[in-house]
């Protein structure tokens, strides 16, 4: 394997040169493409984007369901030297329109059925944005058709793939923001390549591997899913959003597609354990189970390992801003009495870590503190939010910029870190980051709501349950069903509160702020 690959698009170009006929991407139900075909399709898009005026450093939106088309779109954008901005194709159009406008994309590749709403949200302001509209997605055919559409009488003249520098922006992933707007985490080629190189070291992928792609492309787990197999000329098996949530479809798919490396949130593995009838399946191909994004309740992990004892299991940890930065391999039996979650482990080779107290002084092993991370995989900051970026980093005495994870950890005697909780109001729900403040701001937009406060309550089954406490204007209390619908229109489904509770007044602290501690104690 060539160790000198320094940009993500080189992974595909290198594999296409070495293994042109090997299957690169499988889209169950819609076909598959070889490395040669994927390279050609992404070249075609690169040429069109360059022809449309996309320049190195520009951003291009990807508003597509997971498909060969979406993978080819990502590589076409990277080959043009631009950064891709993937948005949730099942998410609220208004939120997606905001994201794409926020980072001022030059172009967007969008399915026809989603384009109308997107353009309506943009109105006049979206006029300068090129929309490459695909007639759906599936197997790369709609993208190929759009590239050769009759109205493009002449195909775009061939251009060359841009050699992006290590510091150039590769993609922006938007996560929940406490101010009510999602914020864009800017990641460079160096950030992603250093992480993928670490994956090569630890997971030893080969061209025979078949990696699952369970996470949606706007979620950071997708970086391992897409680029590790494509670097090693292995095969990427795309799992649709619909099948991905349904253990009845997912469990047989892992078997029939002979997945060798599985990566998802613990929530999905828990669903598979509970509802997937795993004991009936043949998972002999599966050699690794990787999980990240949230704490895996030991009860469910034990049940999974009992059903599938053969693969190696890794707990990966890292916010979107740092990529995976610590890891822990589970070995041996899980004792029946254990309910303490497993550690997040030791730093990856690309990362350095530090634990500090509230005055940012390093603490000793065994003492609690906030985890700081630095290294090649740590992001450049947030798009167009210099103040947030400044707050997120701590300049060390030696000039090193440390990313503040906000996660409170402790270093155990065996050098592994254990995650203890958060410093702020962010929670993880099904692996997704949720800023409780963003939910509150959405609720305040409802005309009947006078005051809103949202808390996360621990829950054995679901990890956390999100509860909204509301005060309404007199005589205007909406039904819970109406509120669920209202939230579902404004927020991704993982941010819709589980429970609503109505009150005349919300408890306040002596400084007249919402007293979240007392709210959590209210029943």
């Amino acid at each position: 394997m060539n160790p000198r690959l320094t940009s993500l698009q080189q992974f595909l170009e290198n594999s296409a040169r070495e293994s042109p006929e090997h299957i690169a991407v499988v889209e169950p139900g819609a076909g598959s493409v070889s490395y040669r075909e994927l390279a050609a399709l992404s070249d075609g898009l690169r040429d069109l984007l360059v022809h449309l005026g996309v320049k190195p450093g520009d951003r291009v939106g990807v508003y597509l369901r997971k498909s060969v088309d979406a993978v080819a779109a990502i590589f076409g954008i990277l080959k043009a030297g631009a950064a891709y901005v993937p948005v949730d194709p099942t998410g609220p159009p208004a939120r997606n329109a905001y994201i794409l406008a926020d980072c001022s994309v030059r172009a967007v590749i969008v399915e026809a059925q989603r384009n109308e709403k997107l353009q309506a949200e943009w109105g006049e302001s979206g006029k300068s944005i090129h929309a490459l509209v695909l007639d759906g997605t599936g197997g790369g055919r709609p993208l190929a058709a759009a590239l050769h559409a009759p109205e493009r009488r002449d195909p775009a003249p061939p251009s060359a793939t841009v050699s992006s520098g290590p510091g150039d922006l590769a993609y922006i992933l938007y996560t929940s923001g406490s101010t009510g707007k999602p914020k864009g985490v800017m990641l460079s080629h160096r950030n992603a390549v250093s992480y993928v190189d670490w994956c090569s070291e630890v997971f030893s992928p080969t061209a025979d591997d078949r990696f699952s792609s369970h996470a949606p492309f706007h979620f950071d787990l997708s970086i391992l899913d897409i680029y590790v197999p494509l670097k090693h000329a292995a095969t990427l098996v795309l799992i649709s959003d619909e099948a991905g949530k349904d253990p009845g479809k997912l469990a047989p798919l892992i078997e029939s597609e002979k997945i060798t490396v599985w990566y998802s949130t613990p929530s999905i593995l828990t669903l598979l354990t509970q509802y997937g009838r795993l004991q009936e399946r043949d998972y002999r191909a599966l050699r690794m189970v990787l999980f990240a994004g949230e704490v895996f309740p030991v009860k469910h992990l034990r049940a999974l390992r009992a059903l599938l004892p053969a693969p190696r299991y890794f707990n990966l940890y890292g916010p979107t801003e740092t990529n995976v930065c610590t890891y822990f391999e589970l070995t041996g039996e899980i004792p029946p009495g254990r309910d303490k979650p497993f550690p997040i482990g030791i730093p990856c080779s690309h990362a350095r870590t530090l634990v500090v107290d509230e005055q940012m002084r390093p603490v000793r092993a065994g003492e609690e503190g906030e985890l700081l991370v630095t290294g090649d995989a740590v992001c450049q900051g947030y798009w167009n939010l210099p103040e947030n970026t400044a707050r997120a980093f701590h300049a060390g005495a030696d000039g090193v910029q440390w990313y503040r994870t906000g996660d409170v950890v402790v270093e155990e005697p065996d050098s592994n870190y254990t995650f203890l909780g958060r410093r702020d109001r962010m929670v993880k729900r099904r692996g997704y980051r949720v800023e409780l403040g963003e939910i509150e701001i959405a609720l305040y937009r409802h005309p009947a709501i006078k005051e809103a406060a949202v808390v996360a309550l621990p829950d054995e089954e679901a990890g956390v349950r999100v509860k909204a406490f509301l005060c309404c204007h007199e005589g205007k209390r909406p039904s819970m069903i109406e509120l669920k619908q209202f939230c579902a229109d404004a927020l991704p489904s993982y941010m819709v509160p589980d429970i609503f509770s109505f009150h005349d007044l919300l408890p306040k602290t002596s400084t007249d702020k919402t007293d979240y501690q007392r709210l959590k104690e209210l029943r």
Partner: protein
Amino acid sequence: MPDAMETVKNFILQEFLPGESPDQLKATTPLITGGILDSIATLKLVAFLEEQFHIKLEAHEVDVDNLNTLADISRLIQAKR
């Protein structure tokens, strides 16, 4: 089959809409597209339906067409019994 619908309605109110007044949940209230049932809630509902009504739902039947309203669900139960 009003009895089955009532049973399902009570389950949904109790599990996913605690505190909601029962007359707000109508036979035509959208459950999945209305943000009441997310993917995990849908699985819980399916497990409940299978156990309560002694039916077996295939993976392809677990979708918005069959489960989006109480009316859809009771049609599905009737077809399966």
